[in-house]
């Protein structure tokens, strides 16, 4: 089933534990990935409010120097953005199931 492959990959990604204390470089990488996914979701006009707020929380944590929390929030924002992309893709046809005929 093509659909389930990205889901399992997505879940594995968001549960990966951060081994050592995160550095600013880790944060920058995680934030960039999250922002890319968020832009893609916005491009599909299916952005979630929680993606936007989690991204903001990541930036705020980074500005406060707390890179552990910043990386965690950025990873979560990426996961949320990816989930909204999966939702938009699957709904392209799934909506018909609910249609009143």
């Amino acid at each position: 089933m093509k659909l389930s492959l990205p889901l399992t990959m997505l879940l594995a990604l968001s549960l990966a534990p951060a081994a050592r204390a995160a550095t600013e470089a880790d944060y920058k990488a995680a934030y960039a990935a999250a922002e890319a996914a968020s832009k893609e979701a916005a491009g599909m006009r299916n952005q979630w409010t929680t993606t936007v707020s989690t991204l903001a929380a990541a930036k705020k944590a980074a500005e406060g120097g707390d890179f552990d929390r910043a990386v965690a929030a950025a990873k979560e924002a990426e996961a949320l953005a990816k989930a909204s992309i999966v939702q938009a893709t699957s709904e392209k046809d799934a909506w018909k199931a609910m249609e009143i005929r």
Partner: protein
Amino acid sequence: MKTRSALLLGSLSAALVAFALTSPRVVAADKVDPVADAKAFQNFFFQKFPNVKHEDFVNGPYSMNEDMKRQWQEKEEFPPYEFALDAGKEMFATPFKNGKTYADCFPNGGIGIRQNYPYFDEKEGKVVTLELALNRCREANGEAPYSYVKDEMASLTAYMAFTSRGKPMDIKIPDDPRALAAFENGKRYFYTRRGQMNFSCASCHVQSPGERIRAEILAPALGILNAMPIYRSEWSGMGTTSRRFVTCNSQTRAVPLEPQSDEYRDVEYFLSYVANGLPISGPGARP
């Protein structure tokens, strides 16, 4: 924070997978048939709520619950939208700086025409809603457009709706492939799940009208726009159709689109068309 959202993600993806399995027959892109869609849509609600009078569906939650209906009738004795109505009537008659008024922009001077909005504009190839037409009228006469979600637009549409009260909704779909596409796009938007809550408009207004979301009773989708604009006690103020769409989106944690984006115009077109024949009851009072 992290485990909670992972949990939520897990449940979401599980729901998605389960969802995909339950609808094995993915229907090929069938021909768009608005007439059949409207009939099926109306019959669904007439059969699901056999003792609700057909014209009562336009009263949203109040057609679904007696206790709420009594509170509504009590409010209707002297409704809270009274001020917006008076303000709208005054604004409608006040000429622009160039001496023209709204009456010059609309058929029949803008009186008793709300039931024909939104309409499909064949020149533009897009749906034009009442709110959009009002702002275009303002801009055409050198006035600044009003916000789509604030009181001025609500007052104007309240007055225009009031002049059409009781008239059956009468939306036309011209024999133009772009109009059929707009209708289909509106239908798709209506049934598409969005936001982290993974709800579509239909999840609430088709699957569970009459049930409660905390204190509120969910309105049936049939005739849900007939009472627009509405004075909502929750906003303690007037709300246009645009405001309702935007707030519904953010409640399901979906980032709202710009008011009067194509999707919103099309879903308003779809919802109004399938409510053809049901009376205009705007402006309305709601929880």
